[in-house]
């Protein structure tokens, strides 16, 4: 294994880097990580939740499944998923954000996160963190893709469609490896993760070659 990048990412901050086709991104964490990628040579080609779900014909992706762009091209392949068997990564949620938490507090909806109504809310979240992670490429806020939410296990009733936040997280940091299918700009957010038992935690982002 040849390490290209190995970065510690503090809780509720963003991270970004370029990577080449064939290289592998390892995200290691025990908290939610909001993740997105963009074609390094065409910043208009961005990761897309809908195309990913429709290509793989599933709402929860894992080892062997591919992340797809809006333009219907494969961007990354999940080559190892240590969360498999414990929980699912999510493709329903957008990014959390300062405005999202502010509205939830105003409307008395913070108890959705299972810690009650009086938890302190952060002034920013994964939207702002991914803007920061992609800052080298100046991606406008409205074009930050809705992400792959790594380790965000969500309870979904597929009959009624009801979605519930879940505290199911790894007890110790584990990883997911993604292999780039094209040259990419990648960004990740160490989510403030208000539903987790101990809220948001730092993450490790590593890019390597086999």
């Amino acid at each position, binding site marked *: 294994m040849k390490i290209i990048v190995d970065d510690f990412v503090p809780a509720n901050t963003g991270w970004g880097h370029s990577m080449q086709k064939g290289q592998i991104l390892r995200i290691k964490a025990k908290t939610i990580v909001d993740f997105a990628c963009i074609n390094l040579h065409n910043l208009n080609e961005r990761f897309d939740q809908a195309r990913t779900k429709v290509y793989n014909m599933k709402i929860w992706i894992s080892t062997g499944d591919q992340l797809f762009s809006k333009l219907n091209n494969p961007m990354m392949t999940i080559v190892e998923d240590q969360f498999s068997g414990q929980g699912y990564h999510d493709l329903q949620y*957008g990014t959390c954000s300062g405005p999202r938490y502010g509205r939830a507090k105003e409307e008395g909806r913070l108890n959705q996160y299972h810690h009650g109504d009086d938890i302190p809310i952060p002034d920013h979240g994964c939207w702002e963190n991914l803007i920061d992670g992609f800052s080298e490429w100046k991606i406008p806020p409205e074009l930050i893709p809705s992400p792959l939410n790594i380790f965000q296990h969500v309870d979904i009733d597929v009959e009624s469609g009801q*979605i519930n936040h879940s505290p199911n997280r790894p007890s110790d940091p584990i990883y997911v490896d993604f292999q780039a299918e094209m040259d990419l700009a990648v960004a990740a957010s160490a989510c403030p993760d208000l539903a987790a038992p101990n809220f948001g935690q730092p993450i490790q982002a590593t890019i390597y070659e086999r």
Partner: protein
Amino acid sequence: MSATTQTTLRPHEGWTGEVKTGQVLRITAKSMIDFNCFEKDNFKEYFDTARTRIYNLNMYPTVNHRLFSKQNNPMMKFIKDGFSGIGLHDLQSSHGCPDLMLKTLGTVKSMTLADLPDPMGLFRNLKISPSGQIKPSPKGPLDPVDIELKAEIDLVCALTNCPSAELSASGADCIVTIL
């Protein structure tokens, strides 16, 4: 409430129009419709499927749900769902007829596929298994039903009448009314 405008869309036609705060957009149809909306004076604020799913904490939009923007602001409220009890609208998929939507929107705002927001897929009835497998299950109503969306801000709305070849009710006209 009286109609201010009414348009009939044949299959594979699109429509775009302004819907002011408080007005109701009624879509009367029995085959698949892809729907988008934008803040009237700012196309950077667009209907977002992910923000909508999470605000409502539900994958299937229906009565009393609100359509939310990327910026986490309410845009429309679902006030009538004639498909309820028959099938489910969809927030998982991309456009069935993206070229048609781009052509339709092009009359007000030039846009490329890369920037086209994912739609609300009315009458799409995508079934999801307990293991997360997606299974298209086309199932239109036998007769046209009304979907009503009330604008919470001034909007430009766009929709395409995009029937699926699998759908038994494919090829049906759609009526778009602003009340």
